[in-house]
């Protein structure tokens, strides 16, 4: 058995070399912080509240930092989304607030859009509003998969790791969800 496994006393922070702490933090910042927009978008879609979304992402980063040593190095985005889903579920449980679809469109406008022409943006937002409604009308298990695979463009494998389900289930749910979306948008004559 390696010697370090026999260690009974926890390592004191003074024993850890300063550059190891810095490397540890740098690695976290390098891998986790670029995922902030994805986490924020997922949180806003899950909580339907900009304020709660910020709390959820803040708590997700905190939990991720606490558990950083246990991260296995695969699919950082999936690992973060697993944490975020649990945090969002706790927050929703505490607030006991039913998720309403009415605020979603307003919430969409809170998010900063990426520098388009005003007319183009208004046109896009109209279609986006209908699209958001259609996505929100999906059952939660379908909605999450659409958000991960089609909005965030994660691979089936990453989505499966995020939701802790088999890849085949991701595919079948995704295809059924897209079919429902297609039908809903066809009803609204968007497509």
């Amino acid at each position, binding site marked *: 058995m390696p010697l370090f496994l026999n260690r009974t006393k926890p390592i004191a922070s003074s024993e850890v070399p300063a550059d190891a*702490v810095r490397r*540890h*933090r740098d690695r*976290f910042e390098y891998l986790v*912080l670029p995922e*902030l*927009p994805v986490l*924020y*978008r997922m949180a806003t879609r899950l909580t339907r509240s*900009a304020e709660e979304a*910020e709390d959820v*992402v*803040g708590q997700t*980063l*905190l939990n*991720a*930092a*606490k558990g*950083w040593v246990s991260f296995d190095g695969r699919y950082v985005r999936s690992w973060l989304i697993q944490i975020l889903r649990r945090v969002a579920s706790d927050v929703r449980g505490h607030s006991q607030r039913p998720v309403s679809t009415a605020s979603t469109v307003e919430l*969409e406008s*809170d*998010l*900063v*859009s*990426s520098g388009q022409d005003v007319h183009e943006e208004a046109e*896009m937002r109209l*279609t*986006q509003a209908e*699209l*958001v409604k259609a*996505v929100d009308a999906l059952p939660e298990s379908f909605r999450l998969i*659409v958000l991960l*695979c*089609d*909005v*965030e*463009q994660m*691979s*089936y494998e990453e989505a499966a790791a995020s939701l802790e389900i088999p890849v085949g289930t991701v*595919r079948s749910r*995704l*295809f059924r969800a*897209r*079919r429902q*979306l*297609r039908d809903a*948008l*066809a009803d609204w004559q*968007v*497509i």
Partner: protein
Amino acid sequence: MRKLMNPSSVNEPCRHMVGLLNRTADGRISPWFKWYALAHAARCPGCGQFLDQLRVVLSSLRTSGEQSVPSDVEARLLNGAWRDEL
């Protein structure tokens, strides 16, 4: 190929093509299967329409993911309590 097409409805894709058409639309497919799906869709009205509609839906969904975090929120998150844990 004609035998493999769905003769019942021009609005519905052939059942056995749904998976391939989905993967063609989202680009997660090998070139050979993509060629097969496109060749089928070109001759089958139901699958052709399904693929076109799917592409519109996916392109709209991708656009909806191009929004970023408001700068004040981002600043607060970047300086959050997580920094004390590392």
